[in-house]
């Protein structure tokens, strides 16, 4: 059985070109870039090259790039730094649909006495920007918002919001983990102060992240210790992975056009095919401002984990918006915040594509899914009721 991998918002395969770049830096060129000898120093040169490539993807300068261990660390570092450099400000603005890396930290900070505004979204996943702007106050330290949603792919107008925040002297951070490599990111276009990236979402390995900190923005290190990363993130550099994410960013830049054309066409084909062949199915989230690779689709009266396990039997990998896969019991906080009805929220599947997918794979999914959904509907006590 061949595997059809459509779960690229969860993680991606390491690109062969990325792996090839990394391999020499484990057992051959294993020097410490901080060392005085050229054996280590040469690795340092390679890191410089990687830093430039990461900076290029988002139109930043290399000095603005800090390597971290993952997207979650980048998010934590950004949010906690914003509070540390603004000790008098006790307010953060975020949204109700953030990734747990931001959401759970904000909820923790709320218990610690900070005031957090969780800006709601509408039925299509669009942010209530009026409420967001009116929440900006004198004691607001930070606005932190995802660039694009991991579950629905809905894109927030982060550039416009960064501009408004900047006018009020409020720091702006964006979790761009899902947006990077899928839509163009240009930090020179808007006053974005901090931005998080993750390697494993763009065909670099797991365990490497990036935090962009705009030149001139005060930064308080999350991990204190050695002088690495200009004193902004201690710890011996994860050299091979940094080299890997450098190469991955280079490739991501080259593939942006393909994302917006071939990948988008595959997603649209899959979306149309599923909607046409499976009754009582519906797309979650605004279709206009959406990542080109993401499709969140709900099937009424069936449950996500059961769908995924039957898909798994046919080699198709995807995710669900269902509770049962994650251990919690409510459907995803994103779908609930959008007020997606329970009957389709529980049966929501997220397909997320990459440039490695093919149109033939989409056709295979389109021909396989109707049978899976029907099989579960045949034993669902809610199916006839829904249909009637």
């Amino acid at each position, binding site marked *: 059985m061949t595997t059809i991998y459509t779960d690229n918002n969860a993680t991606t395969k390491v690109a062969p070109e990325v792996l090839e770049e990394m391999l020499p830096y484990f057992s051959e060129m294993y020097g410490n870039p901080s060392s005085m000898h050229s054996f280590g120093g040469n690795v340092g040169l390679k890191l410089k090259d990687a830093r430039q490539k990461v900076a290029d993807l988002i139109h930043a300068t290399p000095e603005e790039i800090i390597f971290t261990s993952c997207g979650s660390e980048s998010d934590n570092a950004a949010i906690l730094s914003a509070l540390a450099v603004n000790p008098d400000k006790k307010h953060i603005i975020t949204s109700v649909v953030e990734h747990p890396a931001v959401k759970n930290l904000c909820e923790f900070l709320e218990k610690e006495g900070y005031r957090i505004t969780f800006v709601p979204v509408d039925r299509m996943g669009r942010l209530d920007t009026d409420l967001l702007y009116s929440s900006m106050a004198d004691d607001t330290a930070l606005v932190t918002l995802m660039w694009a949603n991991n579950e629905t792919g809905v894109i927030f107008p982060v550039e416009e919001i960064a501009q408004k925040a900047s006018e009020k002297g409020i720091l702006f951070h964006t979790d761009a983990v899902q947006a990077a490599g899928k839509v163009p990111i240009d930090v020179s276009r808007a006053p974005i102060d901090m931005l998080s990236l993750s390697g494993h979402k763009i065909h670099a390995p797991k365990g490497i992240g990036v935090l962009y900190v705009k030149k001139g923005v005060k930064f308080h290190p999350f991990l204190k210790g050695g002088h690495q990363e200009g004193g902004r993130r201690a710890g011996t550099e994860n050299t091979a992975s940094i080299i890997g994410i450098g190469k991955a960013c280079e490739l991501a830049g080259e593939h942006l056009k393909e994302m917006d054309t071939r990948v988008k066409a595959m997603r649209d084909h899959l979306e149309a095919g599923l909607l046409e062949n499976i009754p009582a199915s519906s797309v979650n989230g605004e279709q206009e401002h959406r990542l080109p690779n993401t499709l969140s689709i709900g099937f009424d*009266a*069936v*449950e*996500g*984990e*059961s769908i995924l*396990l*039957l898909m798994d*039997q046919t080699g198709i990998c995807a995710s669900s918006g*269902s*509770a*049962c*896969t994650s*251990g*919690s*019991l*409510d*459907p995803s906080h994103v779908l609930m915040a959008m007020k997606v009805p*329970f*009957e389709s929220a*529980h049966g929501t599947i997220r397909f997320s594509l990459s440039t490695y997918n093919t149109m033939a794979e989409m056709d295979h999914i389109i021909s396989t899914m109707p049978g899976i959904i029907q099989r579960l509907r*045949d*034993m*669902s*006590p*809610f199916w006839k009721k829904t249909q009637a």
Partner: protein
Amino acid sequence: MWEYSDKVKDHFLNPRNSGVMDSPDAVGETGSLSCGDALKLFLKVNANGRITDAKFMTFGCASAVASSSALTEMVKGLTLDDAAKLTNDDIADYLDGLPKEKMHCSVMGQDALRKAINSYRGIQIQEKPGNVVCECFGVTDLEIIEAVKTNNLDSAEDVTCYLKAGGGCGKCVEKITEIVATAKMEA
């Protein structure tokens, strides 16, 4: 990914007795769309009070389907008296165990069976005795106390695994913790 036993996988992939039963003698329904799982159990009962056939319709995850399938296999041939003694643990044991977080699926099976038997016997049970503690899943304090005592649960987290209570918005977790502590002291 959950670690399901081979039996759970088998009953999920090849569910026994799924589908609607024509003119059943007893029906037991539990769960709801909002809860994320639901089971409708159908029984045929002969003049001697023995279950001759069972079928189910289930909405839910793999362990919910497997628990329902197992339940129908287990009750066939039993007298109503014996069937009434089946517990959620018996269902889980039949399937070589369920992940702890999925124990509520076996509780759902037990609940539907009791409701079917009661409806057959014409017993009107009071809707949900006790006071609702978990509003997300409509679970009462008496249900929590019973689950703590019969399944020897230790924490609010355990209660969530068995009854789902506390697993939604989380507002009632503190209250559940208090109920667990009191019930443990009484036990």
